[in-house]
């Protein structure tokens, strides 16, 4: 971690049908952290990262990626959407999905070639999915589908990785494998932002955390702010860190 800011969110307000989902959120994510975004269902976690990625338009506020708008920096950011957000019955293979990770740097019209394919295969190998490269994606288990999504992001060779619940519905082996990759990414200086559901594993997996429930409750290092007070403020009930562990 250094003093550089990877993602800066200023006064962000997002609403669907006039109902505010995010309210005046300020957030600075330092470069090189492995950060969890936690909060109850419907807290606006997915909306926050979609706003960072310029997928949803805010009604107020700005977002900067390394000091510039997303449009200028998209090659530096890789996104892992929630697994349930796509139709896995789409007629395509694991390798083909991972190749999509190269589309951004290729730009319009140009097709992926040998170099791209080699990188995609390497990414598949990294997530332990090489032998499933030709498999139709609907015939993969939930954990395998999640690994394919991760490989697709790895291929982008980005500086910032933004992931929406990558541990959702995966088995213990896959969870370990993914955590190892996340830690490796951080070690090589990347910034990793993960929407996370399992409070119990926050201290073990992450070094930085943001509590969110429509408003930002707190953000900082897990050591400093992952405590009963913030958990209670975010989840509304009396939460105890000690009970989680």
């Amino acid at each position, binding site marked *: 971690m250094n003093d550089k800011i990877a993602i800066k969110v200023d006064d962000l307000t997002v609403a*669907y049908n006039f109902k505010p989902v995010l309210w005046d959120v300020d957030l600075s994510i330092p470069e090189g952290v492995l950060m969890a975004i936690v909060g109850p269902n419907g807290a606006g976690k997915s909306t926050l990262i979609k706003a960072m990625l310029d*997928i949803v338009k805010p009604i107020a506020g700005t977002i900067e990626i390394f000091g510039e708008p997303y449009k200028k920096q998209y090659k530096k950011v890789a*996104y892992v*959407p929630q697994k349930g957000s796509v*139709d896995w019955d789409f*007629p395509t293979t694991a390798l*083909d999905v991972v190749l999509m990770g190269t*589309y951004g740097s290729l730009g*319009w019209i140009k097709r992926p070639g040998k170099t791209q394919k080699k990188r995609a295969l390497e990414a598949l190998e990294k997530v332990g999915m090489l032998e499933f490269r030709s498999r139709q994606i609907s015939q993969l288990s939930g954990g395998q589908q999640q690994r394919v999504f991760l490989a697709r992001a790895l291929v982008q060779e980005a500086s910032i990785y933004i992931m929406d619940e990558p541990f959702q519905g995966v088995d213990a082996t896959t969870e370990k494998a993914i955590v190892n990759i996340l830690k490796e990414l951080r070690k090589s200086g990347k910034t990793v932002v993960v929407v996370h559901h399992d409070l119990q594993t926050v201290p073990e997996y992450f070094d930085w955390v943001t509590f969110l429930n429509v408003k930002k409750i707190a953000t900082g290092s897990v050591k400093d702010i992952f405590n009963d007070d913030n958990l209670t403020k975010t989840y509304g009930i009396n939460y105890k860190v000690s009970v989680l562990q």
Partner: protein
Amino acid sequence: MSVQEYFSLVVTDYTLRTITLGTAILGIVCGMLGSFAVLRKQSLLGDAISHAALPGIVIAFLISGAKNSNMLLIGALVSGLVGTFWISGIVKKTHLKSDTALGLILSLFFGFGMLLLTFVQKMPNAQQAGLDKYLFGQAATLVESDVWLMAIVMGVSLLVLLLFWKEFKVQHFDPDYSKSLGFNTRFLDVIMTTLIVLAIVIGLQTVGVVLMSAMLLAPAAAARQWTNNLGIMIFLAAVFGALSGIFGTAISATSNNLSTGPLIVLVAAVFVVISFVFSPGRGLLFREIRHWKNRNDLQLHKTLHFMYEIAKTHEDISHPHKVKILNNFQGYTRNSLKNLEDREYITVDGAMWSLTQKGYNKAMNLYNQQENSYD
């Protein structure tokens, strides 16, 4: 005229050739573009566009006051586009479900179109204009210039799909991700929707407002059953579309009074039914067979496992045992005993069975797999 005679006539008869070529090309265009509508699960979109085109046709007739079919096409195009982009506007602004918005526009435009149509039909020159042919289509009115227009739309669609192949692929699989990669997803959507509107408009004269969306969806839905590759799916959809056009026209030409449009759609529907029943992998029949086979295998494995448990207790695994002791066991049937013997897992001698080495190994593997399946 028999179907055979028809096919020899196609080569020589100008009118027949024009119609056949037109319906085949229409089938190709619909199959290619319909594939994307099917993958987006936008099954109502085609319906909405074709119904939205009707008022445009009538208004174009009222303005030009003639039966100039190009004017009518332009009218259909304009009102189809207006309807379609109105739908996406509604979805964006109000967050109504897109099905709701589609249904709304569909009935609004179609109702308005029908209203205008009944009004126009009372006018003196309405009969020759034959506006009502746009409801169910009339392939017989296709002329060479119509076919040229269809060929141009086909060429443009093919070119656009080849050019933006990877963009359309990622866009239809995962639109949010596509946006995060920096692609202008709005632009891609507008291009695809415009192509679909074009395909529908050029098909209205042949297939008609009511059945046009079936023409768009059926070949693609059938093609999806046969492959897990997007490119092959689109190719197959184009082939099914073309065959629907050709056979629909052939059947119509050989049986005097049946109109072409509905027949084309009917042939396409036959492709759908065949594909949903017989395609390997996804078809109902094969799924049933696989299910039945799995159940059978399971029963066999249960019996084999039971035998293994018995044989394990003996020094010699091939020690013979009475068939009778299996009677207490649910998975046992005469058939499964015979099946096990066919696979050389056991040998049967009168009322006695004994496990072979092969059967023993197989049972041990099954046993280990069960243990490991909980990791």
